[in-house]
């Protein structure tokens, strides 16, 4: 817990984005999480990404479930819309909100407990439907809020703080998301903002279901020897396949990498992702290849991070359903409900 309000003063030389905001303007309330929690770094990364993208805060809806991770939307984008829903129900609340108003940017924030246990079904269906959203799981391998029980992402054989070994198999949310057809899939680490911030920015720019699994050490219950989600373990086993820069608007970032090592992905919203390859053979447009790559590396105990899969041409739920361009919540009542004569006609056509 912290205690004094974070002072409003900021560094006098802070840069401003296209809207005239500093990154401080994207903050929320002061975090009440344990000091050192990985989730706070993810909060800072979301703030940074939204600042860099010059997003208008009132155009964002942040929706979460229950857990320490799901508390974090209170700590960023204090001027955005928010919905702290029921445990595991973030995906359905988000899907509903997205259907009603397709014009907002949807940030779904969840935990490994929230998404891989109680909300596993909800997670799966929002992904397979291609809801246009950025779905972030703050993955610490435990139920932090309820004092550190193993979650479904805890690796088999890893040890709890008290020394008990986990005997259940782990769910790899990235593998599932790939299998369910997510069109933007990434994994990162809360302790590596230089990788995480552009990933979040790119995910926000992606149209369709974007999923980011962020390993985020629970400082209180899962940062000990024997844990596979601790700072030390993740740093030792992190295998990044690529690094990226997001290029937005008129601000071209000078890309001065050796030729052939950079792959530029053009996104639906006009932004570009410059992918610096670390693993020369890794192709982020090959879903099947990504799945086998992940499985092979997981077997070796490596944690693969980076942008693992992206389909820049993806479609979203609204396109699948062929809904109108105008957000449903902006339509007049007589358009939304054209009356019994029209209903009769439709019914007749189905007879």
């Amino acid at each position, binding site marked *: 817990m*912290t205690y*004094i309000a974070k002072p409003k*003063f*900021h560094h006098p*030389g802070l840069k401003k984005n296209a809207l005239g905001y500093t990154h401080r303007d994207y903050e929320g309330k002061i*975090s009440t999480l344990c*000091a*050192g*929690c990985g989730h*706070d770094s993810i909060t800072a990364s979301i703030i940074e990404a939204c600042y860099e993208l010059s997003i208008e805060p009132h155009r964002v809806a942040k929706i979460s479930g229950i857990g320490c991770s799901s508390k974090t939307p209170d700590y960023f984008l204090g001027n955005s819309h928010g919905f702290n829903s029921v445990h595991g129900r973030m995906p359905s609340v988000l899907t509903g909100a997205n259907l009603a108003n397709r014009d907002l940017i949807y940030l779904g924030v969840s935990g490994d407990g929230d998404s891989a246990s109680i909300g596993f079904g909800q997670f799966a269906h929002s992904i397979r439907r291609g809801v246009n959203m950025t779905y972030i799981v703050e993955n610490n391998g435990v139920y932090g809020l309820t004092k550190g029980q193993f979650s479904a992402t805890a690796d088999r054989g890893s040890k709890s703080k008290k020394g008990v070994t986990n005997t259940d198999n782990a769910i790899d949310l990235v593998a599932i998301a790939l299998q369910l057809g997510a069109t933007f899939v990434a994994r990162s680490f809360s302790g590596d903002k230089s990788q995480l911030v552009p990933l979040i920015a790119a995910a926000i720019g992606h149209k369709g279901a974007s999923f980011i699994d962020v390993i985020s050490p629970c400082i209180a219950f899962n940062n000990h020897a024997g844990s596979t989600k601790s700072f030390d373990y993740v740093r030792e086993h992190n295998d990044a396949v690529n690094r990226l820069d997001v290029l937005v608007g008129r601000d071209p970032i000078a890309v001065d990498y050796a030729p052939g090592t950079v792959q530029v992905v053009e996104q639906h919203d006009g932004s570009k992702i410059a992918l610096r390859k670390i693993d020369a053979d890794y192709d982020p447009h090959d879903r099947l290849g990504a799945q086998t790559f992940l499985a092979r590396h997981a077997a070796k105990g490596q944690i693969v991070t980076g942008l693992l899969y992206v389909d820049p041409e993806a479609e979203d739920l609204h396109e699948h359903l062929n809904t109108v361009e105008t957000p449903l919540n902006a339509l007049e009542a007589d358009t939304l409900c054209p009356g019994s004569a029209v209903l009769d006609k439709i019914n007749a056509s189905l007879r």
Partner: protein
Amino acid sequence: MKPTDIAAPDYFHKVVDCQWACPAHTPVPEYIRLIAQGRYSDAYMINWKSNVFPGILGRTCDRPCEPACRRGRVEENPVAICRLKRVAADFKDDIRQRLPKPGPKNGKRVALVGGGPASLTVARDLAPLGYHCTVFDADPEAGGMMRTQIPKFRLPNSVIDEETGYILNLGVEFKGGHRIDSMKALLAEKYDAIFVGSGAPRGRELELPGRKEAAANIHIGIEWLANVSFGHVDKIGKRVIVLGGGNTAMDCCRTARRLGGEKVTVVVRSGFDEMKASPWEKEDAIHEDIPILNYMVPVAFKHVAGKLIGVTFQHVKAEYDAKGRRNLVPSGDPDQTIPCDDVLVAVGQENAFPWIEQDCGIEFDKWHMPKVDPKTFASTNPKVFFGGDAAFGPKNIIWAVAHGHDAALSIHKMLSGEAVDERPLPEVQISSQKMGIHEWSYDNDISPDKRYKVPHRDKVVALKDIRAEVELGYDVKLALGEAHRCLNCDVQTVFSTSLCIECDACADICPMDCITFTANGEESDLRQRLKAPSAHPDQDLYVSSDLKTGRVMVKDEDVCLHCGLCAERCPTGAWDMQKYFIEMTHAGSTCPTKSRSAA
């Protein structure tokens, strides 16, 4: 960069910008916290130890600390450090019991020439150690220019009497009305040491046509102010011109307004912004309806049969040569004569040592200034020391005090048989401020308040009475608000590399983006890679040794609020907030010097 050596006493001292900038290195944040706690006497004593004249300086100090104050880099205005000092003086209890007592005499005699702040500081430091100090002053009372120059509406006599009294009561012998006319004669009296604190007593002349003829109404500023102070002068003409742009000019014009000057005008050669006077002095003059005309060079005093009628000025403009140096060249506008009844000339102050003979072993340089060691204040005669305005030309009270402390230390060392040029390190006390998980023994909540204005006496009333103090000082409530603006820069952020797990919590929470984890590099390179731009390269970077990931922690000290959020957010206690109390070592401090510990 190499890991920062925080054990070097200067490192954390520099972070306390105000204290570092104060010539006497007053522990400013410590006394401001005491004021916030209502412990005015304690706050006064901290000041008294460092700067000797808290009540006087709290009204008149040149405040080099304020432009340096960190708060001024965070928002518009620095903390009103100076006026808070006055609060300590105004609201303290009777502190006489807490002053040192005259020590048992050690048989050594020190003569001090001049009774200004420099000499009085030397006496203050030496008398409690048993030295017999004799202060000679040509004027009847102690205080030097603090008494004779600074107008009473800025500094009442009662404050001077009180604070010079504290020193004279230490068993210091004061010989008022006693001018020293010969250094040789003084040396012959076999004092063990002599301190020259005779100031810079001469006002600069302005030799222009008409100066001699109209002399009756042309006055040298500092002579005139002294005459006003002694009561020899109590009126002036209705129309007065003050020539010069320094603080003396500001005191002249404001004094003239109180002695019958209805139309008082200040005229300066340079631009308004380049004037030497402190901004607040200019503000106060303008507030008293005194126009300040700039870029006008006086060329002649106009008179009719020896009666002054005005001053003629040439209009000039500033031109910059290839080297960027400024020259004042005629603007081409026709000369202008401003009618007046009296002129006050305040165009500078000079040293003069007519009483120091050539063959006393005291060497002078080509500008007729004594050769003085800037560290020890010794002259080329090892028994004779200089300080205050007499040492390096006119400065101000707080510099005179700082010189006095250093000279006293030299005299004490010399007379204790120690090497004079071996200077002791400051005394440093370090203590963690952690009380509980998120509890600190200092108030770490940052006040957003803007600088509080000091209440002034109503102008009409103030201008009627030359002895009525203009500034009324903060009341307790205003003082508390102002005290809360201080950022506690002495409560240092101390980093332990071995404890850090590189979780980024501190970097994320820091409201000022001071903390960066990055690869090490040269300083100039590191400064390019900080989270927030480094605007002040004179502010240090605090660099850790290598962390587990091979990176280093770099903290730009520049705009740190000392709010302690990094330490609150750190899961391992790698950051701690530790109070560094740094105090200069004065003569006779218990802290052993190097040579003593070797003995």
